[in-house]
């Protein structure tokens, strides 16, 4: 064996590490991402009282109507929720999406006032004051958004605010394809 080949070992190590870092950067690897175990599985149970007065509580039946639904956890105290709010307004108005909004750890009167001020895109709205529904849905915070198909299977889980790109590349194809 040529002993001089051993001198290439540090260089090879460097190349290996550089390759890994380049891949991490280019492929958008996010070591902080906690992923979601819900995708591909039936949606967790939905059992939450209504946010708006004089409306019946939200139940699992809403998730198995045969039509795809978007489930969005939000709060009036959450700034990224404010940022993504216009996208939901457009999805509801222009695209006729069925959106279920759940106010997480948010006083109902404050959530209602927030929706009154900004517009209410939610066909159904729930109030999860204590975060119990959130825990069942594997929520880490707000905003988070789930795409649930007509059979009640979770197809996508966004942690953090949705963007225009998510709408165009994921949500619109989902709404069209699942119908």
């Amino acid at each position, binding site marked *: 064996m040529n002993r001089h080949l051993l001198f290439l070992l540090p260089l090879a190590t460097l190349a290996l590490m550089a390759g890994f870092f380049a891949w991490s950067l280019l492929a958008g690897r996010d070591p*902080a991402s*906690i*992923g*979601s*175990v819900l995708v591909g599985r039936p949606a*967790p149970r939905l059992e939450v009282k209504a946010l708006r007065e004089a409306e019946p509580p939200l139940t699992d039946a809403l998730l198995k109507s045969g039509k795809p639904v978007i489930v969005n956890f939000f709060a009036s105290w959450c700034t990224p929720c404010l940022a993504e709010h216009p996208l939901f307004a457009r999805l509801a108005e222009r695209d006729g999406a069925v959106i279920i909004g759940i106010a997480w*750890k948010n006083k109902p009167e404050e959530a209602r006032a927030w929706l009154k001020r900004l517009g209410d895109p939610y066909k159904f709205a729930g109030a999860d004051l*204590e*975060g*119990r529904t*959130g*825990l*069942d*849905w*594997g*929520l*880490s*915070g707000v905003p988070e958004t789930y795409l649930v198909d007509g059979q009640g299977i979770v197809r996508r889980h966004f942690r953090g605010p949705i963007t225009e790109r998510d709408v165009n590349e994921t949500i619109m194809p989902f709404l069209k394809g699942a119908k």
Partner: protein
Amino acid sequence: MKRLVALLLATLLVAPALAVEPSEMLPDPALEGRAREIGRELRCVVCQNQSIDDSAAEVARDMRRAVRERLSAGDKDEQVFAYMVARYGDYVLLKPPFKAGTWALWLGGPLVLLVAGGALLIAARRRKLPVAPAPLSEEEQRRLAALLDR
């Protein structure tokens, strides 16, 4: 000076502050003890490397409450862990399980140690012992004697 030393020593005895609030605790000390054991093994999902017992995050508090509710309902410890994994995945376990996706994580360290240790051992065996220098020739002996005599 003595007082300062006493003060410094006293700081060593202080237990690290927990985020668990008295109002969250269970009245039964045995159950609460199990809840603490479990809480130390569960990772807060928004703080990366803090257990739910150490974290003041909203979600961590909800998780602590859920742990206590499950225990009060009669769940075994494994059932409580399963409950959390079903919602948050293996990420929620501070000690990841040994399975297909994590074998490199568990075996990587020992493997590197084995390979490196083996390489070192082989290298050490191959290394030749230093050869004893040849004895001085007569000519050299004479020169040495001449130098020492001077």
